């Protein structure tokens, strides 16, 4: 029983990591291959759009994986390979959007929102603290002259 559960768990693990890369695509140089895998994971499949070309079984994704490997073998750096693809398909093809002028809101928006929330919370707790400290003042203390005058003025109308 235990073995069968283990088998199922293990095969589930294998499935979770299943890739679209076919054995014939894999490069002989393991360093090149690992760079190709890394780049493939960063590139969006333009047919299925929410998968990387490393995950996708689409024919075009396969051809793009091969292209990435060809360019690596030809001596391109990682940046050069990505530039080649971005030049043709736009920033959209990168699964991680680049940090630049048009994506400022995307990258800085969450930090800005967090800052605003933090500021709001700070103000809120500060106010609450000053409110509780007011309530804590000594009730047995006598009023001084100015306070008595003010109290009288406030109660003046009702005193009759």
């Amino acid at each position: 029983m235990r073995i069968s559960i283990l088998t199922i768990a293990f095969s589930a693990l294998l499935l979770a990591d299943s890739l679209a890369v076919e054995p014939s695509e894999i490069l002989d140089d393991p360093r090149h291959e690992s760079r190709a895998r890394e780049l493939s994971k960063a590139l969006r499949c333009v047919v299925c759009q929410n998968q990387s070309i490393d995950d996708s079984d689409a024919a075009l994704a396969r051809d793009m994986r091969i292209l990435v490997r060809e360019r690596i073998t030809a001596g391109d750096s990682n940046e050069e390979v990505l530039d080649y693809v971005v030049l043709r398909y736009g920033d959209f093809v990168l699964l991680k959007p680049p940090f630049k002028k048009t994506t400022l809101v995307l990258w800085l928006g969450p930090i800005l929102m967090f800052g605003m929330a933090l500021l709001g919370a700070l103000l809120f707790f500060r106010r609450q603290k000053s409110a509780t400290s007011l309530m804590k003042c000594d009730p047995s203390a006598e009023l001084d002259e100015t306070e008595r005058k003010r109290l009288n003025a406030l109660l003046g109308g009702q005193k009759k």
Partner: protein
Amino acid sequence: MKQRAIFILPLIVFCIIGFYLAKGLTLDPKKMPSMLDGKPVPTFSLPPIKGRDNNGFSQNHLLDKVALVNIFGSWCVACRIEHPFLMQLSELSNTPIHGINWREENPDSGPEWLKRHGDPYEFVGDDPRSKAAIAFGVTGAPETFLVDQEGIIRYKHVGPLDLQTWRGILWPLIQKLSHKNIPRGTL
């Protein structure tokens, strides 16, 4: 009063974010920006498809006349819909159409398809491994590029080409690019 105003702030922020998110929902994610407009055609060199005795298709064929480059495949249903219009265009206009026969698993399929439905192309290259298709930034078939006489890509049309696109966009552009009035013919 000043303290009240601060309570409206989150609502305003929410409305602004909501507006842009709602706008995002109306965009078509399949519509990708055309990156190569105004850029020279990529370097590519494709062998001819079976049964055609010219020298295939490369960027050198795109340097003397304003021309259309059409990406097609026998497996592509929308290409079948587009094809009669390309046939008409090749007969009735003098803008050359070149073809990139994309991703044929069987090298006979493309030529057979053209034999059956007609061949509107001047040059056709065989691109089974998406070499030229990726160089052009193609995401699906059919796609059509308008390339001027200097080899600069001027327009990219995604999906089947039709009379409306031809009359509304391509024809006016071709006239502007060739700096002269060429009769439109009956199209």
